[in-house]
């Protein structure tokens, strides 16, 4: 993940390399690690579990067929998979020509009474680590200057263009571009520390 240790990134890269050699066990391991965050992202953007599942299926089939094209110089495996998911979700939203719905629905724990899916087998340590990472990213994002956070969230989750964000917030285009740039830089810098 973007904020995970180098060791975790190396493990992800090893999984991708093995998937490139058609190793189904490696695929299963990577699925267990990534499906939760990717599904959560698809749900937030699509607001529909059936569509989110379709999108997730598309993404993992792409990971299976395109593992050989993954370039570790361009991004971590986690970021690659996130951007792939976002791209598939946006394709779906465009194809259906409907307005984007942002769903601030119940969390997994609220929805399932704290139970987790049986297909995802994680150790207690993994779960704790993931919770820590998630909490940290949320903390860092929450503590960005509000105008930067707002611009990034509108671009990332709502897929509004910089032109649309500028119009909605009634700000000059250059200001919006700068807010996105500064926000992303700050996010990255704070996640590293």
């Amino acid at each position, binding site marked *: *993940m*973007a*904020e995970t240790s180098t060791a975790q990134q190396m493990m992800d890269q090893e999984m991708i390399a093995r998937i490139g050699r*058609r190793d*189904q066990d490696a*695929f*299963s391991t990577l*699925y267990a690690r990534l*499906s*939760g*965050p*990717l*599904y*959560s992202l698809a*749900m*937030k953007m699509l607001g529909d579990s059936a569509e*989110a*599942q379709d999108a997730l*299926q598309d993404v*993992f*089939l792409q990971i*299976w067929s395109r593992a050989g094209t993954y370039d570790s*110089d*361009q*991004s*971590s495996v986690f*970021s*690659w998979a*996130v*951007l792939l*998911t976002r*791209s598939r979700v*946006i394709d779906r939203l*465009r194809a259906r020509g409907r307005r984007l719905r942002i769903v*601030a629905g119940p*969390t*997994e*724990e609220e*929805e*399932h009474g704290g139970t*987790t*899916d049986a*297909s*995802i087998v994680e150790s207690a340590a993994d779960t704790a680590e993931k919770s820590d*990472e*998630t909490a940290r*990213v949320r903390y860092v*994002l929450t503590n960005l200057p509000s105008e930067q956070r707002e611009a990034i*969230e509108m*671009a*990332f*989750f709502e*897929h509004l263009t910089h032109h649309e964000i500028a119009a909605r917030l009634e700000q000059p285009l250059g200001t919006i*571009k700068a807010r*996105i*740039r500064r926000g992303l*830089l700050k*996010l*990255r810098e704070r*996640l590293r520390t």
Partner: protein
Amino acid sequence: MISEEQQDQAALYILGLLEPHEAAAFESELDANAELRDIAREFSEAAGAMALTAPSRTPPASLKQQIMREIGAKTEERTVVPLRRAPVGWVPWAIAAGLAVFCGLLVLDRVRLERQLADIRAADPLMQTTFFTLAPSAPAPVDSKATVAWQPGRQSGVIRISNLPAPQPGKDYQLWAVDAEHKDPISAGVVRVDKNGVAQIRFKPVEKAEHVKAFAISLEREGGVPKKEGPILLVGTT
């Protein structure tokens, strides 16, 4: 040193907010600039982390089973029946020696063919032509399309458009060449369709375009503009 403008472009590129021609131009800039690649990677990691701020959900177990079945089926499709092992020790060596000779002949043949192809290309204008297929972008009708036959040597081409309705009064369609060595798309002139949404026009870009990566059609003010302003309707690479 990366300028703020380049950083802005990198952030927009990672978030998928650039127009297709802008993205193509940015990608060629990325190819040539290691520092820019570093900043793009930083933005990519920051954007990746954004996914963790979505409310936590878990996909159903049945989805994993379904995906595993699908990849299993794909793997079976690709499985090749292995060759039977040769029963005698010297046979593999004989086969290897034969293959080595055969590969040598193939290399010689390839060199000869490449020379012949280069001669043919030099002599035949059609062989010097690159074809681009332009597909509709969001505002254009889904069945609209265009094909460009581009001759870099002559710096001219022909575009054929179909199913693109005439623009509203006061507007024109304009063709652009996206060249790896130019920051902005190069105008290749206004293109006008007939009442059936069809056009076949010969064009020449206003500036030399030696490394064209894509062509695009945008909706602009009547008579065209020197620098692209309007939305891209059709865009495509080779």
